[in-house]
């Protein structure tokens, strides 16, 4: 069997974001990058399936972006992926979800993948489109936001996370794509021998131009911090004073302390 997992490198969300010069995306200075959290669940699930299937199964990790994404690819390799593809694109952050999905679909279309794993969304853009769009372009069965995954003899049984803690159970036949959600698994911490092996593995580099034939369907106007909600009060200072102020507000504005 052939498995593919798609990963994105995103800035750590604790970072302080500032718009870039064009004002359409973040300035990368002072940002710490890591693997998109949801993609970590995808990699873990893919590796678990690869281990379950054993010999004869190949798991490829793919990432699109500038050279820094190699770190994220290496992490996926260290977690247990067999092969790696880096679609080199210094301008990846400017591509919309349709274009990103098209790049991946263009790569995957003649590779006969049986199962593709993606995160349910990226932490920075958060559009939750790429996975499903890849599936549509490839004609794969697809389900999203999974918190449970089981594979048996060509059929995936997935648990989708729905609102309010309810789960929906679905079965789908391969070839299929699933998008992974928090709660699916606990991503493994790569062992040192695997980190070492990952360092020696070859990463196939493909220029994005070879893969992308599509125009963007969405244009970003601006990237900016949210406007502060009007009327919100910010209290700072000594704890004892803060307590007095908050008590006064509670008495004044709510019926709770009467």
């Amino acid at each position, binding site marked *: 069997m052939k498995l593919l997992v798609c990963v994105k490198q995103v800035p750590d969300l604790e970072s302080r974001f500032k718009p870039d010069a064009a004002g359409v995306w973040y300035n990368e200075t002072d940002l710490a990058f890591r693997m998109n959290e949801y993609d970590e669940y995808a990699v873990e699930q893919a590796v678990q399936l690869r281990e379950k299937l054993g010999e004869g199964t190949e798991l490829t990790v793919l990432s699109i972006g500038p050279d820094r994404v190699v770190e994220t690819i290496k992490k996926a390799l260290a977690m247990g992926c067999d092969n790696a593809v880096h679609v080199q694109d210094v301008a990846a952050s400017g591509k919309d979800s349709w274009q990103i999905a098209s790049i991946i679909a263009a790569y995957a279309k003649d590779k006969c993948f049986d199962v593709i794993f993606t995160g349910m969304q990226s*932490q920075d853009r958060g559009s*939750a489109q790429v996975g499903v*769009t890849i599936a549509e372009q490839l004609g794969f069965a697809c*389900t*999203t936001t999974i918190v449970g995954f089981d594979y048996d003899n060509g059929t995936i049984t997935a648990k989708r996370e729905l609102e309010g*803690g309810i789960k929906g159970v679905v079965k789908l036949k391969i070839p299929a794509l699933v998008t992974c959600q928090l709660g699916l698994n606990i991503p493994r911490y790569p062992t040192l021998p695997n980190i070492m092996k990952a360092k020696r593995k070859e990463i196939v580099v493909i220029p994005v131009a070879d893969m992308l034939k599509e125009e963007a369907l969405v244009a970003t106007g601006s990237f900016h911090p*949210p406007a502060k909600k009007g009327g919100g009060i910010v209290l*700072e200072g000594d704890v004892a004073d803060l307590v007095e102020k908050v008590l006064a507000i509670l008495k004044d*504005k*709510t019926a709770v302390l009467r």
Partner: protein
Amino acid sequence: MKTLLIGEYREGKLLESTYELSGFAEKLGAETAMLLVGDENSLPAYNGTLYLADAVTCGEYNPDLHKKLILETVQQENPDYIVFLHSSYGWDLAPRIAASLKIAQISEVIGIQDNGSFEVGACNGKMRRTVKSATSRTVVTIQAGAFTAAEPGGTPTVRKLTADGGGRLEFIGYEPAEQKEIDLAKAEVIVSAGRGVGKKDNVPVIAALAKALGGELGASRPVVDAEWIAHDHQVGTTGQTVSPKLYVACGISGAIQHLAGMKKSDFIIAINKDKDAPIGEIADVLVVADVMQFVPALTAKIAR
């Protein structure tokens, strides 16, 4: 301008959130038509054309079939916008429609700009983007709670849809959420603990404030995932959506999923050491302080 609104059913019941779609259309100033895969005994109070397929035959979750129904309706109605909720149903289905029609999709819209752009969140709610569709027709998913629900009213003109073909997904069934011992939805006061409380041992400090205020203990998702607090206390899109008179967020930075679950609270007090935490955007009062210093002091004063 015309919108096609795609509502949702869950276990045979129309979801109230469907009215938020109408709210969005109102704000956009657009005509509407609606499509539901649901039950004719549980129809929305809605003035307009309602395309209705039967969920018993078509399934509540059957993306292939629902896609087919939506595409047929799009042919009929020729809408400018196809609007979903950004929900497990919406984000699953919307990209299928967008990809099939090769049109733009704008996800998790929180605001409408005058120039035809939409405002969406970025970086887990820390930032915003304005985006504009480059195609004549656009798929939109709207963030839960971002648009005021339209007042239910009227009777729909129902046009029944039928579909055949099973689709590639087989829906097995729902698994209930873990049993809840408390009902946060009915609580008048909720005091919630976030990752900022530091550790499990500090949870009783937050619970003590909840008790002093006569309220319930809530929690953000990370705290529940860390098993500091049971899941039935979780507030947010994957927990419970709440609207108490007073919501006190202790050490909750305000991930978008959490904000969506509690932003309808009448009065919000947030205690956070980070002045720039997203929770500050929706809080009526943001107390910049260490939770473990401030909360016990406040509890002591209230208890007195």
